[in-house]
């Protein structure tokens, strides 16, 4: 729900040339800086933050919804805290997930007290500053992180949901492979009819790109770990106009890894997902 709102707001943000930057400092009690970094990307880029200590794992996904000169920051937290030890000496962890939100002006600093509201001094917090600017043609997300305290396990990641994906298809049968055919597909757009040729034989398919089903894992959902996963639905064109023949679905990240889907005629469809060029 929030993700959809963020996507809509991002689309309506300031046009296609806008770039959003999350500047982050992780500070310990006594103003000791543990790490600093930044994540930037096109409108709609989210920030995934993770901090692991001996007694706590804190992971959060920060999303923004611009509203004029202000911006609403919504954060979904997924935390684990060491609650003690079992009688058999194993660690017992408390797992929690919740949301936080705040409205601030662009350039203001939001202090995120990771272990709760400060009472006489917080022991660890995150300073977050949001900036926006013109992209200058740079469409790719960027991440930078300097960890001052090497003992700290801190991560910053840009999370971008693909608006398009490059899908490269091959047909394979035994040792014969067809030439690759690439398509730029938009998730949830209407199906597209394609024709693949191999050894003088033509295969017609209808392909459509969709988003994956929500993950059954709460952590995966909260942290949008499947943000860059897309699914290709393949349907054999109906012999008569009324009868569709679903072939299957193949899902994967946009990481240039080939994934195989057997076709009814004995061929195998190999699909590779990648970010579109020029990103």
């Amino acid at each position, binding site marked *: 729900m929030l993700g959809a709102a963020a996507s809509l707001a991002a689309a309506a943000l300031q046009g296609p040339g806008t770039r959003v930057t999350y500047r982050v400092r992780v500070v310990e009690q006594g103003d000791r800086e543990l790490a600093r970094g930044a994540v930037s990307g096109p409108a709609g880029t989210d920030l995934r933050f993770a901090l692991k200590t001996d007694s706590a794992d*804190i992971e*959060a996904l920060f999303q923004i919804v611009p509203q004029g000169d202000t911006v609403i*920051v919504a*954060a979904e*937290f997924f*935390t684990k*805290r*060491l*609650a*003690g*030890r*079992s*009688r058999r000496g194993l660690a*017992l962890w408390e797992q*929690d997930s*919740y949301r*936080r*939100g*705040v*409205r*601030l002006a662009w350039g*203001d*600093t*939001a*202090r*995120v*007290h*990771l*272990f*709760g*509201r*400060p009472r006489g001094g917080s022991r660890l917090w995150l300073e977050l500053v949001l900036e926006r600017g013109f992209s200058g043609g740079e469409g790719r997300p960027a991440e930078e992180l300097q960890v001052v305290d090497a003992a700290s396990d801190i991560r910053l990641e840009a999370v971008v949901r693909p608006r398009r994906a490059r899908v490269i298809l091959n047909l394979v049968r035994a040792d014969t492979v067809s030439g690759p055919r690439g398509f730029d597909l938009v998730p949830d757009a209407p199906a597209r009819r394609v024709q693949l040729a191999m050894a003088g034989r033509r295969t017609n398919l209808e392909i459509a790109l969709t988003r994956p089903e929500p993950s059954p894992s709460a952590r995966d959902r909260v942290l949008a770990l499947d943000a860059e996963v897309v699914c290709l639905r393949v349907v054999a064109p109906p012999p008569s106009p009324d009868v569709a023949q679903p072939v299957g679905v193949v899902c994967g990240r946009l990481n240039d890894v080939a994934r195989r889907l057997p076709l009814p005629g004995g061929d195998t469809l190999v699909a590779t997902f990648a970010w579109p060029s020029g990103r």
Partner: protein
Amino acid sequence: MSDGHETWLKQIDAELDGELSLVERAALAKHLATCSHCSGARASQLEVRVAVARSAGDPHARVVPRPIIRGRALAFWVVVAIALGVAGGWLAHGRWGGPGGSLEDSRAAIVVH
């Protein structure tokens, strides 16, 4: 025979504690008159009780005096029990943890500066 003696020895204990009825005391007296073993056991029991009464500081007591719990001793053992409880709780919390504070207090908070 041995079981019979066991029963009479229990009756002797009960008699010295003043717990027997007249009928039971009469039966016991009749048995003691004919059984040197049980009458010897009764004499031994009486001697033990005399020794206990003496050690309790009351050699002329009619029955064995009950131990008296003094205020200081009571206070001492209460303090020891509390200290043991606190130490045990502290160790158990360190090992197995505890319920902790309020959940909301432990969750992240965002403050705008």
